């Protein structure tokens, strides 16, 4: 492919205390657009996603073989710094997890850690992130409100804004809308689509419609193996693999 590659995975296998969760996955994730991971529950989508910013490191007994290259650099080499990596590759979790503090403090959390911004700059950064997460108009008058007072969908967008505030190059979504109502889901999907224009976005979903709506490329996993990976339209309309076909046509999963 001529496109710029953000993540290059080479024979990545993941283990949890000796149990293999992923089996020699090799794939390239381009720098622009949205890439979706689909597959039945427990097939290793989250594991792979979390390997992209080393969030699995904190899991006791986790091990990874193979190579994960970010812009050509092996992020699992002994010289790589997982903390710096996570600053470049943000993550939004399945269940919204705002800090028990104000909206402003939630969004300002990352910049306060990494940068020395003046209060004005910080306020600007927070606004920018909230605008990018399409939340600004709803909360601009009550930035000091406790984050827990927001609705579920708003909380999830707050988490997106919080991730955006550190200006990542890539953003990983792990079933970001699975706990949301349809209206909030639609707004989050819009946002994912929008963010895909400027960032590398990887989204795990088991909602196939969602994948077709937001993803440029889709990867289908089954039992820890990458079964098929290609442009979303092709994967859903003319799957090369029979298992993929069975899955996307709703015959199992």
């Amino acid at each position, binding site marked *: 492919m001529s496109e710029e590659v953000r993540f290059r995975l080479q024979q990545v296998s993941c283990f949890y205390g000796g149990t293999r969760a992923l089996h020699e996955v090799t794939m390239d994730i381009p720098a622009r657009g949205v890439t979706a991971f689909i597959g039945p529950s427990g097939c290793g989508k989250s594991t792979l996603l979390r390997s992209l*910013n080393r*969030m699995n490191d*904190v899991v*006791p*007994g986790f091990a990874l073989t193979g190579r994960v290259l970010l812009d050509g650099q092996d992020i699992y080499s*002994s*010289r790589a*710094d997982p*903390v*710096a990596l*996570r*600053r470049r590759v*943000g*993550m939004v*979790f399945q*269940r*919204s*997890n*705002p*800090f*028990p*503090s104000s909206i402003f403090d939630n969004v300002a*959390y*990352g910049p306060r*850690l*990494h940068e020395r911004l003046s209060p004005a700059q910080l306020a600007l950064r927070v606004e920018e992130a909230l605008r990018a997460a399409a939340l600004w108009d709803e909360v601009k008058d009550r930035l000091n409100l*406790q*984050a*827990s007072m927001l609705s579920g969908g708003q909380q999830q967008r707050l*988490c997106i804004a*919080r*991730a955006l505030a*550190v200006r990542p190059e890539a953003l990983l979504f792990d079933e970001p809308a699975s706990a949301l109502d349809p209206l909030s889901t639609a707004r989050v999907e819009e946002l994912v689509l929008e963010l895909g224009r400027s960032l590398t976005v990887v989204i795990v979903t088991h909602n196939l419609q969602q994948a077709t709506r937001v993803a440029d490329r889709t990867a289908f996993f089954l039992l820890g193996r990458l079964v098929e990976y290609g442009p979303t339209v092709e994967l859903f309309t003319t799957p090369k693999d029979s298992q993929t076909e069975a899955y996307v046509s709703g015959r199992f999963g």
Partner: protein
Amino acid sequence: MRADTARFRARARAIDRWMAGLITGGGAAVLIATFLLVLFLVIESVPVLRSPRASSEGVVPQGVPLAAAEDEYRERVTVVGAEGSLHLVGRDGEVEVIPLEGVQPPVHQALFSADGRFLVAVDGVGRLHAFSWRQRVIWEGERRVLQPRLRAIAATAAGDGKHLLAVVGEGSSAKVLVGTEDGASVVHLSEKSTSATNLAVAGPAVAGALTASGEQAWVATANGLQWFQRLDPEVSLLEPTASVPLSFRPTTAAVLLGDVTLVLGGESGEVEAWQALPAAGAGWRLDQAAQFHGSGRVIAVTPSQREKSFLVQRITAAEILHLTSRRTLLALPGYPADAVVARLSPRLDGAFAVTAKGAVHRWSLQLHHPEASLATLFLPVRYEGYERAHVVWQSSGGSAGFEPKLSLLPLIVGTLKGALYALLFSAPLALAGALYVNQFAPRGLREVVKPVIELMAAVPSVVVGFLAALFLAPLVREHLLISAGVLLAAPSVAAVAVVWSLAPARWQRRLSGARELVVVLGMLVVAGTVLIVLEPHLHQAWFGGDVVHWLYQRLGVTYDQRNAMVVGFALGFAVIPIIFTIAEDALSNVPPSLVAASLALGATPWEAARTVVIPAASPGLFAAVMLGLGRAVGETMIVLMATGNTPLMSLSPFNGMRTMAATIAVELPEAPYGGTLYRVLILTALLLFCFTFAINMVAAAVAERLRKRFGRLAA
């Protein structure tokens, strides 16, 4: 099937109801028990502050009185009549008369000793007679009968112009302080011989008193007070040892029980307490210890034979005063204006007065606990023999005349000091340990560390106290430098960690998890070894061989073997499991999703702990420390064994202390039920309860505020 489920449901509901009732009942029982406990403490301790009472008990008329005394059972008042006999006036007015053998009427002066057991009289021909006077109890069936026993000791010519100032006696000898026109003398009468020694008084003696042994004498002239002391045991001479001018005209004097304090009464109603103290250079000086307010010429002062109270007889009133608490306890109600003699009953349960016409008035007294007042319990008090007001706890002493010193402040200070040192030692360790184990430790370590620390709580505190007192305390004393090193270990590791955090991230990553732990432990072992090897040399080189000696010589710091450091360590041993366990639970309750969010934003584990975990767990961390404090305040056995139990006000880490809990444990079993000490100890228990209760309340309130501040945590 359906019926089965229905029956099951019904049974489950019944069990639910039953359990709810049980739990509610149990909770209520606990509340009621606590309430009853507090009620008991209040009921038993509040009487300590009850005000004294006197009630008048009727009047019995009789002849002209010169002096009077009462027996222990308050059955008869013995009045010395001018016609030369003793009148024993019973409560029913029945009078028994016993003639004073060899006394020529009319008797001019008569005087009883403070304990009422010796009587001196100057008769019509100017002879001085001394008697011992006792009333023995015999039982006639069920009836108690007092059998009088008057014995003449000796008589001698007194001469003209002399007046009796004081008499003390012992066995079959009496010493009489006699005032003359140009001074005073002590007449020693015994069955074998009679002698008199003159005192070098600077003028006519107006008032005077002798200590029980007669070895010391106080003599007041119109404008000064002198103190005489027998310095040479070979010679029975009392030598003038100290003197002081007086600002008022004295009329009477008496030495209080304990032979330390002299109470002087004055022409215009002054009542002052004086004592002899060692002077700055050498010798002695007289020092005013107390001043009481009141008006009306003081006729006589009679000390109580029980404690530090005394009766002040004025021309129109009689009051009972108390030295330690510097209070007027009460004025005798209905005191007759023409009273000649007024005295306290030997057991301090009554008082009587005899009027010029010979009417005997009696009062029964309930002084309760005069030595305990809010002021003596909580403010500095100038006790006998002290230069200044002090807060002292010394509840019992060797002699009957001992002045109980019941200031609760040293106990409160000791309690807080012990708790403070314990927390100083244990709170940082336990909190940091909990954070490390919860957030940073390699997997598996937590599974080992937590149960081990919880096991610490299972060590009986008596064992901890025992080891601290008999093993740790001498060891620390012997190896003070190493001990200091041990205390510095944790701060040093923290300092190294701070420096290390500035090192490049790449180096830091090399040293994570178990490797980090091994390096830190290795560092500690190396540092400890170096310290052990170096210690003797350091001793020699810098501290002249002995650090404790050096501390005293150079810094004036006294070192007790059982001191706050040792106690802090031992108490810390009891407190650490509490703080650690609760703190670790609080940290565990922080949702991992919050930590994940923080890490995903590029925070280091330490940053995540600092900015997310600690704030979210802060109510629990605070509660952990407060519960640790509560334990430290209430802990008894460890402080009992490891503090040395000296009630000091010092906050020095090198001195011991005495805590409230330890005091209660040690002294309550010995305290007579219902006595002052008993009540004060119960009051201490009540205070202790209030302390721990307040600590828990504060902990709960602050934890609640923190919880509000950091919001409700996401699940």
